[in-house]
């Protein structure tokens, strides 16, 4: 089972509603979420995603005029809210897919000042200093004898 091109295009048309842009951050549509690879490597997302896309396609608003790709932002939000209400478990997995794609993106990491460089100087914490135990160390032992 896999997500076909039509389904992927529908999914992508909702990305900017799920994670919109603001002054600091790109929308989920503006960056590469690497969805093809994530879906290929992790089968658990495929069935729920197909179910969400199928529901979207069946929505009356999506079946008139230009179809799904012509939906307004407000219509997309309404459809997503209804999908979330009707299929909460599947929707949660679908959102997990989008969030993982978004927050694994190097551009997003840069925007939020996140790095995988473990040797970064700022990460080197001060070793434990036992002077912080001065107060608690004054307490008499209170473990229960048995």
């Amino acid at each position, binding site marked *: 089972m896999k997500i076909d091109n039509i389904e992927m295009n529908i999914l992508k048309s909702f990305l900017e*509603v*799920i*994670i*919109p842009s*603001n002054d*600091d*951050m790109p929308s989920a549509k503006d960056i590469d979420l690497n969805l093809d690879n*994530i879906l290929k*490597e*992790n089968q*658990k997302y495929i069935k729920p995603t197909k179910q969400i896309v199928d529901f979207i396609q069946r929505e009356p608003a999506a079946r008139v005029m230009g179809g799904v790709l012509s939906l307004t932002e407000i219509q997309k*939000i309404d459809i*997503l809210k209804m999908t979330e209400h009707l299929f909460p478990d599947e929707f*949660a997995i679908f*959102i*997990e897919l*989008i*969030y*993982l794609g*978004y*927050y*694994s*993106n*190097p551009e*997003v*990491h840069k925007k*939020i000042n*996140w*790095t*995988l*460089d*473990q040797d*970064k100087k*700022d*990460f*080197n*914490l*001060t*070793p*434990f200093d*036992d002077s*912080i*135990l001065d*107060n*608690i*160390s004054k*307490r*008499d*032992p*209170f*473990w*229960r*004898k*048995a």
Partner: protein
Amino acid sequence: MAKNLPFVDIVIVGSGASGAACAWKLSTSGASIVLLEQGDWFNNYPGDTQDWEIRLKNDFHFNPNVRNLKSDYEILDENSDISPLMFNAVGGSTHHWTAHTPRLHPSDFRVKTLDGVADDWPISYWDLEKYYDLNDEMMGCSGIKGDPANPPRSARPMPPLPLGIDGERIAKAADRLGWHWWPSDSYQASIDYKGREGLNNNGSYHNKKLWEAIASTDHVYIKPAIKNGLELRTNSIVESVQVDSKGNVNGVVYRDTKNNTYFQKAGKVILACNGIGTPRLLLNSSSKQNPNGLSNSSGLVGKNLMFHPYAIVNGYYPEEDIDYSLGSLGNILIVQEFYETDPKRDFLRGYSFQMNRSTSPAMTALGSGSPTIVPWGNSHHNEFKKRFRRFSTMAIISEDLPELHNRVEIVSGNSNTLPIPKIYYKTSDNTKKLLNHGIGKAKELLKEAGCVETTTIPVLRSGGWHLMGTTKMGDDPKNSVVNANCESHDVKNLYIVDGSVFTTSAAVNPTPTIQAIALMTADKILKG
């Protein structure tokens, strides 16, 4: 038809925290020992690559039902408030833990005598003390002596991990409230230790340096045991424990990945398959002699499942310029002010606070420690910014009292699988009251530390790390499955050394105690 394999002195099933420790201790004797493990060697840790959080939610998920690797088996948990978690490989769940390693208190072994509830253990803290010490030395414990909430003990081989700016805030807040706190004991190396590189920091929780700093039993116990002559067989799924016509244990039947089956004859069989895998195996070892499963004359195999229900309180700091994600995720400090029974409260026994801290981007967005994910839509970025690197977590780990209706049963799988464990578990009224008390106290502590907002998860469904109680230890064969030596009351030379044998759960992470029991059992076997 199973192929008969030559006799060995001892077969151990399971190579996780307890099976590995037991195997190492026994391997020093020169006995012929075979260790059967359903998984394989593992070192494919996520970290240092962009996809590491994706892997945490998939092939490195805590939950075997989500992970669904070849080495995993399905667990039916629809009838449980809490999902059981485990990792199946050489080293077991010590590949996938924070390595927070407090000990039980002496009072935990005497709850019937002290508080009139559940049962006393047939062993004491003092029986285990030297094995705790040995295990701390082997696994490598970072920590510091002098904790007034626990008995005096020898110095740890490594200093505590750094508290970090948030840990210091919480510690000082506890001081102001007059509450106990102490730096966590941990099997994460804070300095270089026996070939492990010390790690006193990590910018993003999961990375390969961290995994290598945390003790796992494949390195600590199994490799030295192999040098001593232990034979490890990976990808070996044990189907049943066998007894002869007189009811004496005489080996196990297992299969390999090609579905070839073998009968490994042995003088002693030791089970170390965790609180779900062990009862599953015993229940699947039923026969005409033992129609209700092996070692089950008490009817208690699979009963009294205990988890340590967790409640989670996140506290959010107002400052935007401080990074509260730096340092180890969970080995920071422990609060045991409310550990013991207090007659003034409306519940029995008590709890610990374990401090956790802010984590990585995707995990934050997906609701780490929070009852809700960061919402999708227009408020997404503002809400993410409010949470990301801005919170401390108080995890309330509760004592879970044993109840017969909380249990593991087995149901038929398809023809290619062993029976599937099915879990029934309801959080008790006592636990709910206990957790509610803990939630209130956690909010008080976080507020004192400077947090301006808190969120709460009353019972963490995804928190079934600790699997205990399903083959209870006791002196009375009618009311327990194994004796004080962890030997079956019913079947001579059949031993159990995992968390199944816990008589009660206490309110701390169980791994050092599980390992101390395994080392003690091995010692008793060696001494005859």
